């Protein structure tokens, strides 16, 4: 059949990576616009965290129709962890989700994060990258927790904002 698989895949791959890059760049371009409007006295990180809250709220809504408590607590938390990791993966990260040793605990790992590369390009402090990621996940969980009436929490255990090494998040059911 006349399909050149290598050509099709490499073209698709290149376009995918460009689109993933645009996600990061678009966020930082809007960040610049917001900072210009907010004026010189604005706290840059505060503005970025506010923006990420808006994004997190919206993503959280899209989670609600897809999660199902009937699958049991373990499956629920794994699915939720996979959904959070999936957002990151769509942006170009390499992520994995593992069940924790304790019940009601899931770990999300990220071994490659594209955001620091673009943060550097736009002069964004590296600490803000990690803070934004944590805030994004926390905001998503707010509505999920309320909707299912389950106190869910997520904490960042490791952060390598230069995009190397590993991020580690612990997603768990809070007591």
């Amino acid at each position: 059949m006349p399909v050149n698989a290598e050509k099709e895949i490499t073209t698709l791959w290149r376009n995918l990576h460009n689109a993933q890059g645009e996600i990061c760049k678009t966020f930082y371009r809007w960040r610049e616009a917001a900072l210009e409007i907010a004026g010189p006295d604005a706290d840059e990180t505060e503005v970025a965290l506010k923006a990420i809250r808006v994004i997190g709220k919206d993503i959280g809504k899209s989670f609600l129709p897809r999660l199902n408590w009937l699958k049991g607590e373990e499956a629920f938390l794994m699915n939720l962890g996979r959904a959070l990791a999936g957002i990151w993966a769509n942006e170009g990260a390499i992520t994995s989700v593992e069940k924790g040793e304790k019940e009601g605990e899931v770990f999300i790992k990220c071994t490659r994060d594209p955001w620091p590369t673009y943060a550097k390009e736009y002069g964004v402090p590296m600490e803000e990258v990690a803070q934004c990621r944590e805030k994004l996940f926390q905001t998503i969980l707010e509505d999920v927790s309320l909707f299912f009436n389950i106190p869910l929490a997520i904490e960042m255990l490791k952060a390598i904002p230069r995009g190397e090494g590993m991020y580690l998040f612990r997603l768990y059911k809070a007591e």
Partner: protein
Amino acid sequence: MAKQLFEWDYSSYPGAKKYPHLFKPIQLGNLIIPNRIKYAATEDNFNDPDGFITDADVAYMRARAEGVVGGLCFMQGVYMDEPRRGQGYVGQAAAWDDKFIPGLKRIADAIHGEKAVAGFQLMHCGRVGGVAVPYAHGPSYVPQRLRVFTPVQEMTKEDIKQCIKEHADACRRGIEAGFDVIEISGIVGYLISNFISSYTNRRTDEYGGDIRGRMQFAVEVIQACKEVCGDEYPLGIRLCAEELLDDVRGNTPEESMETYKIAEEAGVNYISVTAGWQESIVPVISRDVPMGSWIHLAKRAKEHVKVPVQMAYRLFYPDLPNEAIGKGELDMWEMCRPMIADPYMPKKILEGREEEIRFCVACNLCLARLFRDAPMTCYINPLCAHEHDENFYPKPVEEDDKKEVMIVGAGPAGLECAYVAAQRGHEVHVYDKREQLGGTILEASKAPYGDDELMTCINYQKVMCEKYGVQFHLGTEVTEELIQEEMPDTVVLATGPVYPQLKGKVAEGARIVNVLDVLAGRVEVGDNVVVWGNRKPGIGVALCLAKQGKKVTLVGKDKTAGFDVNPSFKWRYMIYLRQNRITAYNDCDIEEVGEGEVIVRTYDGYRFPVACDTVVISEREANEGLKQAVQSEGIELFVIGDALVPRNMSSAVHDGYRVGLRI
């Protein structure tokens, strides 16, 4: 002393003999209802944006009132608060002020004009309300599962007290307007159900906690309304027997039955049993749910309360409720969608004209329209929402204007057009090259998940055609010569679509078959099937083949599969496609058909192979055949249904009806 508003004697009617339990009286409070039939409150979005009743709503209700032949006829639920947090639909009727009473009275009078019992429903839409304001009201802030709904704000105790008062005030207005029965809506995600459900009520005050606490609001509303109704006006409530919200930890069935007992203790005179919420992730009322699936809930309710129990929910055929009432599992048969599709359904049952019933096909288009702020319409009843418009009724033609009409195609479009034109006095001849009536519905009805119900439309149209003297010429293919020979005054082309050929290269010997032949079982297909076309015909045949164990891939040009299916049903198909492991490549086309595979091309040019031994063509195009022949003879021409633009059965029926009125 119980009273009866209107005298009805059904003894001489055939329907009363066939379905004796449907046509015997029942007492609700101190009111005797002559039969067991109820048109349940149904939103229609026909009213003024400010909540005033319109002519359209009055006419709509009058038709349903005639239909219930003396039974209960409820107008849509009203919202009761001036800030409009309880308003769930843009065209919902209001009752928050006395200024609405004259409009409401028009509906009560219209219902009484048909000697039916007028029902008035109080419906604060709770977390699915606030349609015209920034937020809705609920017992607790719990995010909405569906984006279509307004965010919820938690009610304060003052809000709760005010809301109870508003229920009582609206109840009084309903009675002053002339209604005979009052009903409180506590179902599907509306305010009272929000308070009752453990999913949406997280309060820790006296309105939350265990099921008694969560029922407290409902109890206070019942008591406030009961005080207004006294013994003279029966008061009922609609409550969920099963919320079907287990995935979000809603109430258990046992808790739901507890709510029934508490409502009865609080003083209601009947309970209407429902199932599911708008947020439930399981199907409740769509065509894929078998008839009578929920009747066990009414039976369960009867085991827990003494007051009469009413129920709708997939009880479309009269034998089901008749039997259930006879067995003591149900007391009254409610209907919404069946009487949207055919307002005179119970009347036809009574008069022994069951074959003339246009049955609802449970597509939920009516609901889809409401959720998109559009006036309700019906998939198969073109007159629905136009009851007030005299131009929508078939008018007899003058003797000199009578025409000989040739209709080519005996599908839903052609048959609809045929009986309407014949009803008006034209001489109508329907031709079809097949020996059977139904057109493509004959095959479409073979698809799984309840599509056999689509044939009820054809059965109805056949009966109506026979009633009005339509002449059938089956097994007759219409040709240019036949048109020249017959020279009718008007030709209506309802020939259905044509199925295009694949545009790309096709390997010699490639197996390419037509969707209709596959559905009818006229051809064999291999194990790896690619269906070309991702609209309803493609989905139907894909599901049918997947059920036979085939590996099916759907390839279509639309951005999403099921573009022609309304959203209230489409979500079912999306789930069934996943469950049956059907891969859908949307926004794609088939570029080439080779040996053992096809090349799929995405909208932006990527190409990939898909294993395939059979391609099923379900893409459709308009049918240009015979147009030239008719026009060249100077004959009046109409093209309808898929022959005009391939769409769905609803479009075919509506096209046919409208052209039937125009000829």
